[in-house]
């Protein structure tokens, strides 16, 4: 106990001597943990909401018979209901109704209320007393979320678009958030089939298996009678399908937050190392006075653990606040636009606190243990003698380990994804980074050794100081290299993505105007007459109509987009083709890169596209194109082949070339007047779309930039800490130099020069390392996360500016750190004997 008290005293005195210096690692760790925990909490509440919604929809169903959005014939329902062992079968028509007043479609679930009561009692419980109303041919119940999003009350009318026609539905009542947390409309199945022109069609059958029946046998029996394109599965699959769409994006964010935590723990390592250097005579004294090596090591590690726990606890508190804010302001949409939490409720479990505090304690403990091990191992007599600071940590870094780590990183980078995630890619980034930092002392040492000795005494001293104090210098360098190389890698990756994205936009937007009717899976379409009318609007030189719709492929997690585009025979669509097959006869299809990864389709391969209702279209893959619009896959086929196969002549997308001199706004106005489809009709000029797309691209990466900026800020803190503590430890030296006749400004110049040199060499190493990391990010992590390729493009100007800012900041940090140490008291410092 007395030892603990003594340590407490020493530790407190350190805080009194340098509160800012001591607080920095706490703040840095807190920042990292705050970000990591906020991302984690928001993700979880959004996912929890998804899960709750999915459970409410599937209710007590044991099995779900799922067709594509086109649905299948309802007579399968009658057959399945008769399968022995089926207790209840409930037919469902699920659709995305395009509303006249809004762009986003409304998720509508149409059920047979009496059967559904036995499968989804929680969902229907609240409206059980009003089931008669549900049977009205134009009645719809809305969930609380849907009602407030649409701004309607019970009794109000809702206009939906079916094809190009408007239908009116009456809102019969409102479900509470407890029954369903997201936006949903519930209708009677017969009413919906009639209102949405889907007579005789259902998309799903929920099945409850009788208690005494064998579910496996029931499932097999049902599976045998299903038409192609219709599957049967346990309802959990649905949750996974919802969550997997944004999984890569979420993992990406979590990794970035972890980078912030790691950079924070690196700062713990840096401060702790420097503080041990500063205290080495105190520590040597304690050893001389009888403290064992092990006890010293444990106590020093405990210091880090305490710092880590404080930082993590503060960070988690900040993370909760940040998560609340994110849910409130951006509704939990972390930039991907898909994973949105609507209820805005945040569930924080005590276990989360424990996990994050333990995480903080662990990383900080490790960060403190590394230097503590060396400090405790140092011979006491050596440490009691002044002047061994420079060599203290130099011996521990074998360049072989660094080289081995880099080799391992390269190996990890070429491994395929794990569970569809680039986990090996992330590991490769971490390993390469660690290996790179490991090589820092050796690389910097040999660089400094080769650096020509300046003629003038002040720069010569600065160089000698960096050469001699390799341990301290390495910390400054490593701080810069860790944070800046990540920033460089990220900047190159985002820039490459942006350039490729712009290129892709140019190619996919060849015309002047773009038109869409609702969402591609919505109920609104343009019939031939409407297409004709649009093409004849004054000012339109040329029109091209497309049909895009979801395509449910067996074995796919999320649905694929099928786009039927007018393509002349022998022609090629306007796409960024990355691979193509030699010309073949038959129907040609172009597939996005994701199709290759998800379904293993290859150019030249013959595949059959299930177009719903048992119709298939045999196509040959003619080429692979880049599609930044969808990472779940898309297929483009000639529209003539699509019409021939399905008889569907409707369209829901169009592009228009305008006549020279035609006024876009007037044309748009005329188109709107012709169709009367309300807000569901979206017409935008190409430049508007380009602008919007780039804006949302930048927004999606805003959080990335924020996280990176924080990492660099933490890195600069590291430089400042290293400079300040170096300068403090060198007060005696400065005092002597002042005696010997060095001007105050010469000492300041010397410090700035050291900072400058640290910045230049650090930034140089970081640019090399960051360039290597960006290759992994571009070709491995990005490719495996989003299933699309991007071309490497280096933002030279941006990197140049960043480097200049960093070098200046490093010099400034060294200056501010040093300035205090050259103040008046420095004269007396010659008498301080450590």
């Amino acid at each position, binding site marked *: 106990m007395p030892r603990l008290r003594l340590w407490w005293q020493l530790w407190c005195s350190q805080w009194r001597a340098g509160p800012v210096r001591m607080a920095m690692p706490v703040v840095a760790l807190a920042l990292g943990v705050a970000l990591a925990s906020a991302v984690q909490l928001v993700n979880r509440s959004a996912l929890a909401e998804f899960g709750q919604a999915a459970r409410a929809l599937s209710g007590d169903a044991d099995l779900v018979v799922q067709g594509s959005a086109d649905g299948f014939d309802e007579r399968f329902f009658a057959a399945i209901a008769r399968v022995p062992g089926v207790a209840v079968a409930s037919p469902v028509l699920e659709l995305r109704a395009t509303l006249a007043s809004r762009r986003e479609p409304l998720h509508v679930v149409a059920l047979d209320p009496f059967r559904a009561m036995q499968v989804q009692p929680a969902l229907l419980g609240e409206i059980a007393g009003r089931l008669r109303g549900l049977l009205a041919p134009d009645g719809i119940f809305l969930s609380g979320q849907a009602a407030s999003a649409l701004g309607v009350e019970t009794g109000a009318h809702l206009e939906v678009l079916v094809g190009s026609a408007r239908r009116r539905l009456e809102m019969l009542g409102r479900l509470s958030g407890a029954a369903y947390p997201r936006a949903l409309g519930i209708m009677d199945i017969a009413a919906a089939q009639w209102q949405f022109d889907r007579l005789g069609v259902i998309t799903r059958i929920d099945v409850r298996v009788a208690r005494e029946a064998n579910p496996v046998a029931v499932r097999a029996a049902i599976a045998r009678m299903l038409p192609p394109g219709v599957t049967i599965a346990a309802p959990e699959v649905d949750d996974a399908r919802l969550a997997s769409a944004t999984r890569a994006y979420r993992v990406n964010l979590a990794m970035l937050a972890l980078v912030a935590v790691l950079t924070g723990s690196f700062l713990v390592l840096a401060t702790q190392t420097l503080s041990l250097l500063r205290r080495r005579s105190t520590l040597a004294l304690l050893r001389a006075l009888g403290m064992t090596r092990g006890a010293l090591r444990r106590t020093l590690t405990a210091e880090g653990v305490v710092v880590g726990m404080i930082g993590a606890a503060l960070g988690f508190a900040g993370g909760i606040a940040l998560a609340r804010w994110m849910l409130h302001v951006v509704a939990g949409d972390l930039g991907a636009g898909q994973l949105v939490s609507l209820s805005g409720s945040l569930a924080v479990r005590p276990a989360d606190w424990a996990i994050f505090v333990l995480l903080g304690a662990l990383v900080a403990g490790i960060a403190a243990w590394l230097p503590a091990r060396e400090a405790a191992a140092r011979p006491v007599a050596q440490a009691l*003698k*002044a*002047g*061994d*600071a*420079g*060599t203290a940590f130099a011996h521990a870094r074998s360049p072989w380990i660094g080289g081995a780590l880099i080799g391992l990183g390269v190996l990890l980078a070429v491994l395929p994804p794990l569970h569809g995630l680039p986990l090996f890619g992330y590991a490769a980034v971490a390993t390469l980074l660690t290996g790179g930092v490991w090589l820092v002392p050796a690389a910097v040492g040999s660089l400094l050794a080769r650096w020509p000795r300046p003629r003038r*005494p002040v720069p*010569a*001293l600065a160089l*000698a*100081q960096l*050469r*001699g*104090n390799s341990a301290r210098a390495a910390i400054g360098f490593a701080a810069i290299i860790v944070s800046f190389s990540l920033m460089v890698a990220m900047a190159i990756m985002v820039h490459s993505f942006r350039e490729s994205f712009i290129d892709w936009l140019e190619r996919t937007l060849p015309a002047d105007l773009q038109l869409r009717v609702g969402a591609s899976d919505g109920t609104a379409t343009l019939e031939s007459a409407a297409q004709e009318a649009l093409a004849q609007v004054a000012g339109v030189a040329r029109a091209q109509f497309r049909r895009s719709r979801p395509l449910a492929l067996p074995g796919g997690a999320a649905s694929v987009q099928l786009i039927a585009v007018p393509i002349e025979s022998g022609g090629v669509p306007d796409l960024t083709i990355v691979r193509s097959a030699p010309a073949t006869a038959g129907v040609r299809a172009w597939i996005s890169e994701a199709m290759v990864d998800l379904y293993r389709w290859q150019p030249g391969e013959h595949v059959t596209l299930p177009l719903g209702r048992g119709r298939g279209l045999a196509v040959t893959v003619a080429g692979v194109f880049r599609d930044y619009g969808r990472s779940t896959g898309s297929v483009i086929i000639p529209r003539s082949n699509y019409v021939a196969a399905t008889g569907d002549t409707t369209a829901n997308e169009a592009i228009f070339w305008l006549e020279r001199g035609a006024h876009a706004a007037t044309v748009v106005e005329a188109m709107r007047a012709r169709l009367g489809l309300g807000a569901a009709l979206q017409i935008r000029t190409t430049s508007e779309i380009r602008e919007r797309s780039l804006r949302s691209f930048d927004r999606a990466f805003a959080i990335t930039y924020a996280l990176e900026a924080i990492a660099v800020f933490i890195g600069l803190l590291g430089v400042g800490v290293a400079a300040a503590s170096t300068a403090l430890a060198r007060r*005696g*030296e400065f*005092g*002597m*130099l*002042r*005696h*010997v*006749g*060095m*001007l*105050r400004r010469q000492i300041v110049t010397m410090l700035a020069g050291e900072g400058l040199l640290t910045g230049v060499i650090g930034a140089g190493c970081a640019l090399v390392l960051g360039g290597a990391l960006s290759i992994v990010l571009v070709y491995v992590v990005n490719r495996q996360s989003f299933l699309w390729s991007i071309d490497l493009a280096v933002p030279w100007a941006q990197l140049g500016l960043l480097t200049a800012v960093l070098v200046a900041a490093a010099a400034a940090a060294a200056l501010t750190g040093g300035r205090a140490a050259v103040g008046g008291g420095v*004269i007396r410092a*010659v*008498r*301080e*004997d*450590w």
Partner: protein
Amino acid sequence: MVRETSCRTLLEVRGLAKRFRADRPPVFSGIDLALGPGEYLAIMGESGVGKSTLLNLIAGLDRADAGAIRVGDIEVTALDDDAATLLRRQRMGFVFQAFHVLPYLTVAQNVALPLELLGVPRKESAARVAAMLTAVQLASDGGRYPRELSGGELQRVAIARALVHRPQVVLADEPTGNLDARSAAQVLALLREQVHAAGGAGILITHSLAAARTADRVLTLTAQGLEPLA
């Protein structure tokens, strides 16, 4: 490099007084002192009496409250910080109790420091450093680093550094405080020898009578002033 051979007193102190806080009595007052070429003086006195303070004043590192200090023909008390620094650079040498040899420079580089600051050409500087190292019996140690040296050797490096630019005034504040008796004797003998050889004035501050006796003259500092050793 400025060098006056015409001036007979190298260091002259008149009526010097220093007070750190207004509510306390002055550390000392009425200090008079004059040193000529080759004169080597030891100052003793109780701890806290102001010996180090006196050296700081002479070096222009601290401001006096009253009195005058002349180094050669220059009035130190009238100089601003930069001018005082240049004066130290050209005409003074220091030896500290704690050595203050830079750990990341070699012995020779440490000794060359004052010459570097003065802009002495490298060739000449190297020759003078070599000569100085020979003088302090470290001729073969120029390439070694301070961590490989003993305390006595380190202090000899410091003496070489203090004298390499042939200062007019050498100030040594308890240079043997950290050394054993044998090393101390060696260092003191060297200091004395080199001050005489360089023809400057030297002040040695020490607590040890034996050390003080190596100087030409011994004075005791009290609050009233400098007095010959009783």
